[in-house]
């Protein structure tokens, strides 16, 4: 296998294939920069062009694009507090506060460097896991997948909010949004008001744009101040690189977590960054600064969301099971180039699999390097007066929102969800659990339905289910305990009676 890996490097570095990879990287970074345009949109745009293409060149284009979307999407997350794509939501938690403190360049430097390392680790994990992953994936049944969906919800729902009840309520609200549209088990449309637009459900990018972008637009204008609260960008991107090196174990841990979560079908990229953020917060010392501009809150999700790409390719390539919309389109791309995903990818098509690993690694390095070079000029965005920035931002967001299904409903829902998001900001209610609940709703319902249909309620006694349930209880318990300790510390600090 190592021999094939070395041989494939020559194929990947061939002139025309390298050009396709560079084109993919440029498109991926641009798509990441524009809020609302996700890797899935990028894949959809590129798909018609790969038809009949040499599979190595086609994969260089597609993987080159998808590998760096989560590198480019850091710019809007840190500078504007708007997720560039669904995988960069958790970066906002500390990246945006850092930008507001005038340390945008530092946050971006840390984000890009940890993204690069995460992406490389994701590629290495993809390579090393090929021989051993098959039995693991096959042992996960629908009950375990349902429990994993609950695990994702419990983790981010609790950790994202100051009050656990409000966090859970926000998560449930997201799940309610997620059940709109067709039911997964029977041909029935729910909560659609006989409006054709809602038959396919609400698109995820729209929920993210509405909840996060609309409030930013309004608050920027009302506040009449630039995104950065200081007059100069005192942070240097190299400080961010040094921070990443300092927190190398966090990078490694988050990358491994990202790759592992990425390979679980249905868990999806939108959850990985929150899982990583939550874990980092739970396991770090002096974690009270998380959410207020702690660099570790940037490093953890950025390491994991790039590493996730390597992990998500494992079920996609090995078993033909797409873990997300992006990998589903990637499967389509493979078919267009005459390649069928499955066990053949580790036998007859092993060199193509190896070329994908190389592309993933090289694209992450080139993408991060390009972003590091551009950090200073693009960071200056955060000093622009909002009344100059907002009109352009509004146009990009309206275009982005409309692209989700190219229907007028996109714009209506953008405003409606935007108003809800703005109210939540004012009331200090967390918005992130809504997204997590939304993402997990359909997968949770589908897996629960399959579990009950196949095993009745006997599935709750499966060892895998019990282990995951134990982890969920542990997380709930520790979160409650941590919030209690935090409240006690707060009361002591105020000098109140405890």
């Amino acid at each position, binding site marked *: 296998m190592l021999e094939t890996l070395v041989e494939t490097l020559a194929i990947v570095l061939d002139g025309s294939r390298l050009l396709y990879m560079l084109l993919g990287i440029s498109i991926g970074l641009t798509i990441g920069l524009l809020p609302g345009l996700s890797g899935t949109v990028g894949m959809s745009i590129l798909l018609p062009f790969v038809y009949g293409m040499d599979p190595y060149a086609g994969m260089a284009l597609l993987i080159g694009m998808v590998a760096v979307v989560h590198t480019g999407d850091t710019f809007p997350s840190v500078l504007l507090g708007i997720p560039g794509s669904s995988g960069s939501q958790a970066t906002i938690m500390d990246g945006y506060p850092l930008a507001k403190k005038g340390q945008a360049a530092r946050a971006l430097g840390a984000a890009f460097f940890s993204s690069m390392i995460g992406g490389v680790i994701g590629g290495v994990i993809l390579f090393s896991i090929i021989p051993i992953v098959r039995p693991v994936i096959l042992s996960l049944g629908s009950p375990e997948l349902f429990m994993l969906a609950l695990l994702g919800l419990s983790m981010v729902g609790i950790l994202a909010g100051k009050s656990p*009840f409000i966090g859970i309520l926000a998560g449930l*609200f997201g799940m309610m949004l997620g*059940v709109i549209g067709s039911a997964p088990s029977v041909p029935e449309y*729910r909560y659609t008001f006989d409006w054709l637009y809602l038959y396919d459900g609400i698109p995820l990018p729209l929920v993210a744009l509405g909840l996060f972008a609309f409030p930013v637009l309004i608050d920027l204008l*009302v506040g009449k101040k630039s995104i950065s609260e200081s007059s100069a960008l005192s942070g240097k991107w190299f400080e961010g690189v040094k921070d990443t090196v300092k927190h190398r174990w966090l990078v490694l841990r988050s990358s491994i977590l990202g790759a592992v979560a990425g390979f679980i079908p249905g868990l999806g990229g939108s959850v990985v960054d929150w899982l990583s953020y939550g874990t980092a917060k739970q396991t770090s010392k002096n974690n009270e600064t998380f959410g207020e501009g702690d660099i570790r809150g940037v490093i953890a999700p950025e390491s994991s969301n790039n590493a996730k790409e390597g992990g998500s390719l494992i079920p996609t390539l090995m078993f033909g099971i797409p873990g997300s919309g992006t990998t589903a389109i990637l499967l389509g791309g493979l078919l267009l180039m005459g390649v069928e995903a499955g066990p053949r990818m580790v036998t007859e098509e092993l060199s193509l699999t190896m070329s994908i690993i190389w592309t993933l690694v090289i694209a992450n390095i080139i993408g991060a390097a390009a972003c590091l070079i551009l950090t200073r000029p693009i960071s200056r965005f955060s000093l622009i007066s909002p009344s100059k920035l907002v009109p352009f931002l509004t146009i990009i967001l309206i275009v982005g929102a409309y692209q989700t299904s*190219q229907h007028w409903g996109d714009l209506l829902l953008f405003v409606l969800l935007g108003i809800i998001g703005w109210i939540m900001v*004012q009331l200090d209610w967390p918005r992130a659990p809504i997204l997590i609940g939304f993402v997990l*709703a359909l997968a949770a319902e589908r897996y629960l339905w399959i579990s009950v249909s196949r095993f009745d309620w006997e599935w709750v006694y499966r060892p895998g289910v019990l282990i995951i349930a134990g982890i969920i209880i542990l997380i709930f318990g520790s979160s409650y305990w941590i919030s209690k300790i935090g409240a006690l510390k707060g009361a002591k600090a105020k000098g109140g009676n405890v």
Partner: protein
Amino acid sequence: MRRTTASLLFAFFIFIGCLWLIIESFSFQATARYFPLTVATLGAAFSFLVFVQTFMKDRKERQETLFHEQFGEVIKYAGWLIGYIVLINIAGFIPSTIIYMITFLYFVTQMKIHQVAVSLGGTLVFLFVLQEFVDIEWPAGMFF
């Protein structure tokens, strides 16, 4: 309005919404009903808990913080955004964008005419490039 009052109203709004979702779910087939029914029931329970928790906390220590100190400004700028979307619905994306850019940059940003022209030109070139190379669609209006 006080922030706590707004919080109570928001929790109440979610509670009523969940109750409606519970009632609506009974019109679905049994297999399609169980999940939204469960989630909506939990949503109603938690929104009630949040309502009671906020109410009790407010009784214990009354907070006078306002919901928003510049609510008039919020309405004004939200109006600009919603007005732009309504204009797109009538005049189409490109004409509306031209009108929106000129009026916003001139009246709100208070740019000079030549600065407005440069910004508008740059935006239109960007949109043209986007349409040509990324092949995306603009929202169509009633007339254009």
